[in-house]
């Protein structure tokens, strides 16, 4: 981690900082204020307001909670189905058509159905996030399990392990680093889909607050939330990256050296 921090080149900040300062000057010089644009200082002020009154915390919690719940449900189903499909070619062939038929459906196209079934609220949003997160986990888990070194399976058989112990001691640990990559991918998708559902339909979370700010002609709040969403997404990904390094240090090393 420290080596990475050292490599961060501060010159990379010149353009964004310059842009913000320039925008501030331009806003003050022209006195621009509209239903679309806001000055950087206005955005900071709006951010401060929602931070103090608790709106931001509340909305962030709602969005993160639905993302994580949907991600968890999608991951569990993805693993439960992906592992057997990776282990058995017969099961894989049996399911291939069904999977390829459902997979292309865009998750957000399920909003109308989910609304009918669950109404507005957490459950509807979680179900759509789960659907979206399910596919990358399923497909990549299947590939990770099917791609486990056959020699390792043979070693386990030769040692006299039964089928369950083989999966538990050999297949899963061997596939885990790649499954975790799938999880990171799905986590990114989960956040995107959660915010999309909130913007499109569901009255909660950061997405809803953004669309509300837009409709009440408060561009400074809308942009403040947009920047905040960027921060949340960035932090989310970095926590996962960090855990990946902690969890799979040695195994990840071998992957690079080969």
């Amino acid at each position, binding site marked *: 981690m420290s080596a990475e921090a050292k490599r961060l080149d501060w010159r990379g900040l010149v353009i964004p900082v310059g842009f913000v300062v320039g925008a501030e000057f331009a806003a003050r010089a022209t006195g621009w204020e509209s239903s679309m644009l806001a000055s950087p200082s206005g955005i900071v002020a709006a951010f401060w307001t929602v931070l103090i009154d608790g709106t931001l915390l509340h909305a962030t919690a709602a969005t993160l909670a639905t993302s994580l719940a949907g991600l968890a449900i999608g991951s569990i189903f993805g693993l439960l189905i992906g592992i057997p499909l990776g282990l058995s070619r017969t099961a894989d062939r049996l399911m291939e058509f069904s999977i390829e038929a459902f997979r292309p459906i865009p998750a957000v196209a399920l909003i109308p159905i989910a609304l009918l079934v669950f109404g507005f609220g957490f459950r509807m949003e979680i179900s759509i996030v789960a659907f979206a997160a399910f596919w990358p986990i399923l497909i990549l888990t299947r590939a990770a399990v099917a791609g486990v*070194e056959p*020699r*390792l399976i*043979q*070693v*386990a*058989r*030769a*040692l*006299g*392990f039964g089928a369950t*112990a083989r999966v538990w*001691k*050999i297949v899963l*640990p*061997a596939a*885990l680093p790649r499954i975790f990559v799938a999880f990171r991918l799905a986590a990114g998708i989960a956040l995107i889909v959660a915010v999309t559902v909130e913007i499109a339909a569901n009255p909660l979370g950061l997405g809803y607050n953004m669309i509300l700010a837009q409709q009440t002609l408060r561009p400074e709040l809308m942009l403040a939330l947009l920047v905040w969403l960027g921060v949340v997404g960035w932090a989310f990904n970095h926590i996962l990256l960090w855990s990946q390094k902690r969890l*799979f240090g*040695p*195994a990840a*090393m*071998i992957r690079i*050296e080969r």
Partner: protein
Amino acid sequence: MALIAFEKVDLTLGGRPILAGIDVSIRKGEFLSVVGPSGCGKTSLLNLAAGLLTPSAGRITYAGKPVTGPRQDIAIVFQDYGKALLPWRTASGNIALALEAMNYPKEKRAARIAELLALIGLSRHADKFPNQLSGGMQQRLQIARCLAQDPSVLLMDEPFGALDAMTRQALQDEVLSIAARTGATVLFITHDLEEAIYLGDRVIAMRPNPGRFEISFDIDLPRPRDQLTTRERPEFLKMRRELFDVIKEVEH
């Protein structure tokens, strides 16, 4: 008395005959080397003895009973140690895998692992991961994992084929001393004629398409063997010459 016996064994995989009419019995405590050109079914022969493959015809017995699947007193050393070790487990962890498979009492595992690591000269590397070990050390580790099973039979599939000459000689002598000490029966597959003669009590040469036995001869070289003097003995050179002629002939 035969510990492992092949009786008129044929093996067909995917409609292709791999082995035909294999008839051999391996005595308890015997060191049997099998040589042959690539594609002659040497590895299939070993997988049959391990119970990883089932013969299409004939039968294979272990201590008089038919072989139906892998068993814990038969251990296999694979050639590709890089793939046969668990990269996410340390040297100790890899040995522990064999102990877990045999339900070895948990409280005695640490001591047993230390003992095996010492035996194979890896005590200082107990906590290293396989990719932090040299090729020779990785193969030692795989051998230690097999010894953890306390096997009566060691099946070795070209175990030193990927190692440099110096490491190979050191490991050959270690395998000989392990076999002498434990009294294990060894089936040793190799494509190196000198290695086959140097290690074995008996050498079988195979012929391909389909794989079958061409010639078998006993090796009366005295034990313990020595990398220099054994290889300089006239009998050694004579056998190497004979074997070389056979292999050259079957390759055409």
